[in-house]
């Protein structure tokens, strides 16, 4: 550690004003502050001072994502060998999935950070660390077989159109990871939906054994094959086809606990989002016009990407509502919209992505009315005493 610090200090002058690599200053700064907590503090204005800066916050989210990621890697292998009708050990499945998922992660980070560094250099501001989380989220919400060049284009699109045009990290309206997914979903639907894309190899001509269906539970339900739904336990545990990191509700709940314990993710949003989903499910149960509507409400919470979205995506502090009351409303409506789109719109088997993006757009409006209501309430109080 000391040697590293000495080395960083040694090369530092090169990047300062007048140094050899002055132009690359923001790049250098990004790496330095990533390795070491900077000793500079804000001097003016009122700021909350905390040892936990943005880079450390982001790192916590990444840690919270690790259980889901590891499980996802194993599941990729598990599903692949299941399709072949082979039984394999834990490590063989994991290793297969690891090799499949690693390129996605590498491409996502290299391309995404490359774009961020490029913009930081051109605009001369420091590199924002916002992509640390998006970079790991993106590989976890795509099908494992997505071609790497498509992923790269989606990441560039998400970073530029989703974030940089609004002014970079902290200014974006839409969640960048979901922007990337929405881009892929609408640009290359053949690689993002159907029953071929979720199992590694099927799209490339791998022949599955008879009777094996690569469709996700949501696709089965949307098609009306409710008898084909896997057991609730396997949906909860996550041994089902789906995007890389979204399948296991257990692993996601572990991540949720980490987020809530460290205070990085808002428990209010998570609770109200799950509540919203549950209530919408119950309303649909009462309606019960078709078989899909009669799926037990709680089962919706473990199907598809609901849990993943409601734990890791809705709680994104930048795009979520900021006020405390607003968080309840925002989470609740996201949960409702997700189940509503999922069940009632046959074109989109999974509504979580669109629901979150939609509510991202409404978050500032919710905040606005919460603040207005607060102002009105306080004004009233003033009048009474005066």
């Amino acid at each position, binding site marked *: 550690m000391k040697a590293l610090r000495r080395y960083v200090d040694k090369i530092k002058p090169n990047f300062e004003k007048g140094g050899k690599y002055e132009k690359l200053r923001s790049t250098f700064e990004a790496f330095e502050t990533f390795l070491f907590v900077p000793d500079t503090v804000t001097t003016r204005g009122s700021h909350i001072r905390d040892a936990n800066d943005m880079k450390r916050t982001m790192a916590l989210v990444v840690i919270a994502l690790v259980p889901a990621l590891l499980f996802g890697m194993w599941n990729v292998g598990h599903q692949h060998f299941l399709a072949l009708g082979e039984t394999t050990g834990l490590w063989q499945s994991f290793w297969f999935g690891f090799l499949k998922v690693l390129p996605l992660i590498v491409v996502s980070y290299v391309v995404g950070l490359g774009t961020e560094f490029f913009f930081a250099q051109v605009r001369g501001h420091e590199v924002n660390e916002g992509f640390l989380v998006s970079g790991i989220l993106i590989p976890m919400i795509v099908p494992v077989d997505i*071609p790497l*060049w*498509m992923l790269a*284009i989606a990441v560039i699109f998400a970073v530029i*159109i989703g974030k940089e*045009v609004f002014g970079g990290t902290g200014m974006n309206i839409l969640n960048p990871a979901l922007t990337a997914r929405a*881009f892929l979903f*609408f*640009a*290359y*639907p*053949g*690689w993002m939906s159907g029953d071929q894309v979720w199992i590694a190899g099927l799209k490339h001509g791998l022949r599955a054994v008879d009777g094996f269906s690569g469709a996700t539970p949501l696709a089965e339900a949307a098609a009306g094959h409710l008898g084909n739904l896997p057991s609730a336990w396997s949906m909860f545990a996550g041994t089902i086809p789906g995007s890389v990191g979204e399948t296991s509700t257990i692993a996601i709940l572990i991540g949720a606990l980490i987020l809530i314990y460290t205070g990085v993710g808002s428990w209010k949003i998570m609770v109200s989002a799950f509540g919203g989903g549950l209530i919408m499910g119950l309303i649909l149960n009462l309606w019960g016009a078709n078989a899909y509507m009669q799926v037990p409400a709680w089962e919706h919470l473990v199907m598809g990407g609901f849990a993943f979205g409601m734990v890791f995506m809705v709680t994104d502090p930048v795009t979520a509502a900021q006020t405390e009351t607003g968080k309840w409303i925002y989470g609740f409506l996201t949960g409702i919209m997700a189940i509503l789109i999922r069940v009632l719109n046959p074109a989109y088997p999974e509504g979580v992505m669109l629901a979150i993006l939609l509510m991202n757009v409404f978050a500032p409006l919710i905040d606005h009315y919460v603040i207005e209501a607060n102002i009105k309430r306080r004004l009233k109080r003033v009048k009474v005493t005066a």
Partner: protein
Amino acid sequence: MNKEREPLFSSKNLKLITDPLNSNNPITVQVLGICSALAITVKLKPAIVMAISVMVVLMVSNVVISALRKSIPPRIRIIVQLVVIASMVILVDQVLKAFAYDVSKQLSVFVGLIITNCILMGRLEAFAMGNKPWPSFLDAIGNASGYGVILIIVAFFRELLGSGTLFGYPVFQKIGLYNIGYENNGLMILPPMALITIGIIIWVQRAKNRALIEEK
């Protein structure tokens, strides 16, 4: 009365044509006519036909309104402008139906909607009502080209990336892009991408032409 008669292409008149192409572009600077720019830019051919139609309509109505400008009672000027535009649009629509039926079908309702295109009303109201026919004519050419240029740029990217063709010619297929795993981008065909493309054009334009950036 016209002692110092202006030359036909004085620098002032030329500016009427060049300004709308860049620093006063109807789409990217005034943000008018966005609706049709999103709707008919999926393919190059309809976009070009649309650009020409708008140019014809705008040229004629600008000149007509400019010639009538002294005799139009101010209180009913909007309705008079609308009548002129509407008659021109119907003419253009009929011509398209007669001689370019395919394109006319692709453009569908959007030829008729030229009537409501803000660029036309804007030019008639803001320019033709207060200027002589010749400058009005140049102004029409300038603004319609400014509109058309953006339309064609957007349509170029949308057709190339969305369908892999240009004027229906399969460019990407000919150079063998599909063989190495390339696929057309379905999002480019959807309207949101047209909006984003226009946004990127505005971004590029402002990066080049700093005078356009508003002060904070």
